[in-house]
């Protein structure tokens, strides 16, 4: 399984905030994806009703996951698909390695799959002697650079074109290109033979359709179509929560997914794959395997965190998150960044391994406003924080602070007195500039920016004054 580095969160944040190049890249993401979304989301005449419908479709399955999974499995099997179940990422790696061995697979072409990142599948396959080629342009760049994705939709958002040009020149041994179009063509020409020669195609699946036993994949580059059409074996890996009942239901979700993700009314390609190649099919894989991964997802069912399983991985919550916009995806330490990652990472790989993530949010609520399936992300973050409190996982400083505050809050007279003194004191410290450059106990704030000093009056004093006018 991919290692969770979320324990390094605070240290990483300091590094990322000071990274000028990263800051440039992130502001680009914000303008393209945030503005792109708002331009096309309005094409949906009745957005609230459509979001309700989308959330309802996801809930319908999640509330009765067992039966929907079994129905999907039955339909898929009837069309010659082999359905595998995996409890952990290691299980996925083992199953894919076994399939590869069974069919004498030497090379695999892979389209983007965040679930496979959860498992650390590429390393496992390489260890088993299978050469894996990432074919999504972003993932290919990351594979060359030996880096992890920093966004679930735009994995290489943290790199600019100069870095890509240097990387290609070094790894491809061709003259250095500078234009983005030329770089894309170079990658296309290098990767085309990889598609044609691959023994196995590996993909994710955005949705599994119970009605037809199909896997549905959305892509823009066409690599998703290539890896599921050309190689003689195709393995699709996805989470157990990805089932959708019918073709109509998936149509509703497809109105929201690309609009929320990249600001497109539809992705270039939507491919629905059902079963293996039949005698009359001119193309397609002779063997089609679908792997259903649990990896902790089932533990979210039936509880207050179940809503998180509605996620369709559009990335809108991170694009709109002021914290993500400033630190990028790597600081979050695991596969999923931004608000959805701050919830999923602790839930799937341990709250004790990611203590800072539930707090990596200002609870501004932007994520919940844009989430196409109406996941109450700030509420879930708050619940995780409560869990941390209950389990005594907060730092002693923070616990002491909150306890002190709670005591004062229960003693209103003393509270009023203490704030009055404190506010006066801070106003004096702030001086003429009315800014505090250094605040004991809050250096995390004041290292990066100043803290505006209070004017010298507390809210209560101001309120009373207004009221007595």
């Amino acid at each position, binding site marked *: 399984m991919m290692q969770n580095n979320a324990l390094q969160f605070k240290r990483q944040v300091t590094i990322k905030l000071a990274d000028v190049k990263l800051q440039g890249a992130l502001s680009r*993401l914000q303008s*393209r994806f945030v503005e792109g979304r708002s331009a096309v989301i309005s*094409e949906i*005449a009745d957005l609230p009703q459509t979001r309700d419908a989308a959330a309802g479709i996801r809930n319908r399955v999640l509330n*009765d*996951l*067992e*039966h929907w*999974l079994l*129905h999907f499995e039955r339909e898929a099997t009837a*069309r010659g698909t082999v359905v595998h*179940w995996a*409890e952990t990422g290691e299980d996925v790696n083992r199953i894919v390695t076994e399939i590869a061995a069974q069919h004498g697979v030497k090379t695999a072409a892979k389209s983007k799959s965040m679930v496979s990142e959860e498992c650390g599948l590429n390393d496992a396959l390489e260890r088993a002697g299978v050469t894996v080629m990432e074919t999504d*342009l*972003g993932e290919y*760049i990351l594979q060359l650079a030996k880096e992890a994705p920093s966004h679930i939709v*735009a*994995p*290489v958002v943290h*790199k600019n*074109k100069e870095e890509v040009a240097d990387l290609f020149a070094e790894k491809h041994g061709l003259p250095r290109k500078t234009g*983005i*179009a030329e*770089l*894309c063509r170079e990658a*296309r020409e290098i*990767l085309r033979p990889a*598609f044609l020669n691959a023994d196995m195609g590996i993909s994710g699946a955005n949705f599994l359709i119970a009605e037809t036993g199909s896997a549905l994949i959305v892509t*823009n*580059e*066409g690599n998703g179509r*290539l890896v599921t*059409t*050309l190689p003689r074996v195709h393995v699709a890996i996805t989470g157990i929560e990805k089932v959708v009942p*019918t*073709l109509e239901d998936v*149509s*509703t979700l*497809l109105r929201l997914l690309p609009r929320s993700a990249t600001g497109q*009314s*539809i992705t*270039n*390609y*939507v*491919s629905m*794959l*059902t*079963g293996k190649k*039949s*005698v*009359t*099919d*001119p*193309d*397609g894989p002779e063997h089609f395997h679908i792997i*259903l991964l*649990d990896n902790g997802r089932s533990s979210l*069912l*039936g*509880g207050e965190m179940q809503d998180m399983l509605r996620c369709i991985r559009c990335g809108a919550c991170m694009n709109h998150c002021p914290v993500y916009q400033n630190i990028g995806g790597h600081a979050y330490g695991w596969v999923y960044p931004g608000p959805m990652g701050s919830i999923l990472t602790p839930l799937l790989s341990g709250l004790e391994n990611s203590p800072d993530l539930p707090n990596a949010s200002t609870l501004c609520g932007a994520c919940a406003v844009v989430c196409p399936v109406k996941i109450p992300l700030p509420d879930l973050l708050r619940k995780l924080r409560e869990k941390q409190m209950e389990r005594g996982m907060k730092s002693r400083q923070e616990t002491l602070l909150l306890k002190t505050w709670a005591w004062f809050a229960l003693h209103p007279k003393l509270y009023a007195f203490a704030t009055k003194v404190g506010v006066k004191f801070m106003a004096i410290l702030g001086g003429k500039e009315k800014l505090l450059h250094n605040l004991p106990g809050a250096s995390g704030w004041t290292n990066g920016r100043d803290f505006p000093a209070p004017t010298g009056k507390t809210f209560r004093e101001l309120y009373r004054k207004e009221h007595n006018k």
Partner: protein
Amino acid sequence: MSARDNILNKIRKAQTPNSNAAEVIAQHLAQHPRGPRPNIPDDLVAHFKARALKLSSDVLETDDSKNVPQLLADYLREKSLPMSGVCWPELADLPWLAAGLEIHSHPPLPHLNPDGTTSHSTKPASGQVAGYLPKGEEANISLREFNDTDAVGVTSAFCAIAETGTLMMLGGADTPATTSLLPETHVAIVDPKRIVATMEDAWELMRKEFSQPPRAVNFISGPSRTADIEQTVTLGAHGPYRVLLILAPL
């Protein structure tokens, strides 16, 4: 205990089992209700064209499919593109040569008969099947190698969707998916009568004409693209660089 049992047990434990789940599921599947849909203007053809152009597809029109080769030839010449390629067998009889195009038909593939034997239901395209097909290997021929060098791939479409300017392609014996995928230019002849309003309508048409979905259903919305480098949209990633839609009755 298998992983399957373990996972299903965990789910079962977390959720109160629904006593009539099977019934509820069967009902939802049988009714497959539609969700909220946008209002699509009555003129589906005009809406389709407008949306397709927005997706960077090129659009031409003719009222006679016999004119398609000439329209294509002019288009390719104007863009200084190669004048040769490959087409689906059903389009093999269009006057390609007369328009100065060298368009080969995919070798028709065998169809499965009810008695389990296979046969060709589409007649081989007269005089136009080039030396592609190694003799005696037609039954299990893979189209992939020779397809990769084709510059132009000409297809029709199962139907088209006005809402988004999208083509719906169903893979099958005479409709290989590779024709719309490997060449740098994909040309699709769209019958205006087969333009429907929404994706839901497209599924309904498929349900009506087929008992089950084919192995591959592909919705295509313009040329392949990537925005991975600096979020700058670049046309022509791994699939076609351009998609030309020719509206013509078929």
